[in-house]
């Protein structure tokens, strides 16, 4: 099928690639289907809503931002995504990208968690003061 995207114009996608977010993403509960677009030659992954052309989250794997990122996936999420093995999980941090790219931040407190076996996803909320909502992606650079 053909979909309209915020950053890549119209693209052809395979319906099997669609990721279902049964509860949407907080703030955007009505958008329940996304497509992951890997931008060639970069580490950025774009989560484009199928329903809303203008809704696209830009993400990075959190391990690229902080080496030792880890959290316990909640029982609720394990059940909701029907997760069976840790290897089936993909984790992404949503980026907040201002005009000055060097000031971009990553949301480590609420990672996107995806079960690649069934393409179900959710945004996990981690109530942990040690995890930043706005973690600088670039450190100490001006």
């Amino acid at each position, binding site marked *: 099928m053909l979909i309209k995207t915020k950053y890549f114009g119209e693209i052809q996608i395979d319906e099997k690639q669609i990721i279902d977010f049964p509860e949407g993403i907080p703030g955007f509960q009505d958008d329940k289907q996304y497509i992951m677009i890997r931008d060639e030659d970069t580490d950025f992954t774009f989560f484009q809503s199928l329903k809303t052309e203008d809704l696209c*989250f830009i993400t990075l794997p959190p391990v690229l931002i902080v080496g030792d990122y880890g959290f316990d996936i909640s*029982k609720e999420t394990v059940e909701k995504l029907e997760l069976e093995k840790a290897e089936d999980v993909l984790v992404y941090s949503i980026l907040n990208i201002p005009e000055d790219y060097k000031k971009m931040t990553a949301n480590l407190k609420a990672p996107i968690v995806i079960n690649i076996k069934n393409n179900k996803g959710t945004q996990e909320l981690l109530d942990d003061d040690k995890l930043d909502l706005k973690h600088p992606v670039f450190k100490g650079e001006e």
Partner: protein
Amino acid sequence: MLVLARKKDESILIGDNIEIVITDITEDKVKIGIEAPRHMKIFRKELLEQIQDENIKSAGAKVDLSALRKTKI
């Protein structure tokens, strides 16, 4: 909204398997213990509001893709 007055160590039951206990009360703070099934989502309301705000800000960005591609992580 149902409003109930409770003292320290008193509880409220919600349905068959949720219990809310007032464990401590000070002048401007109450400590609450919650017993609920593990699959139930429980978090402070501010957290969800923070995440919503951050998602809305993140989605609102108009990013110049060509500039972003030059950004080395």
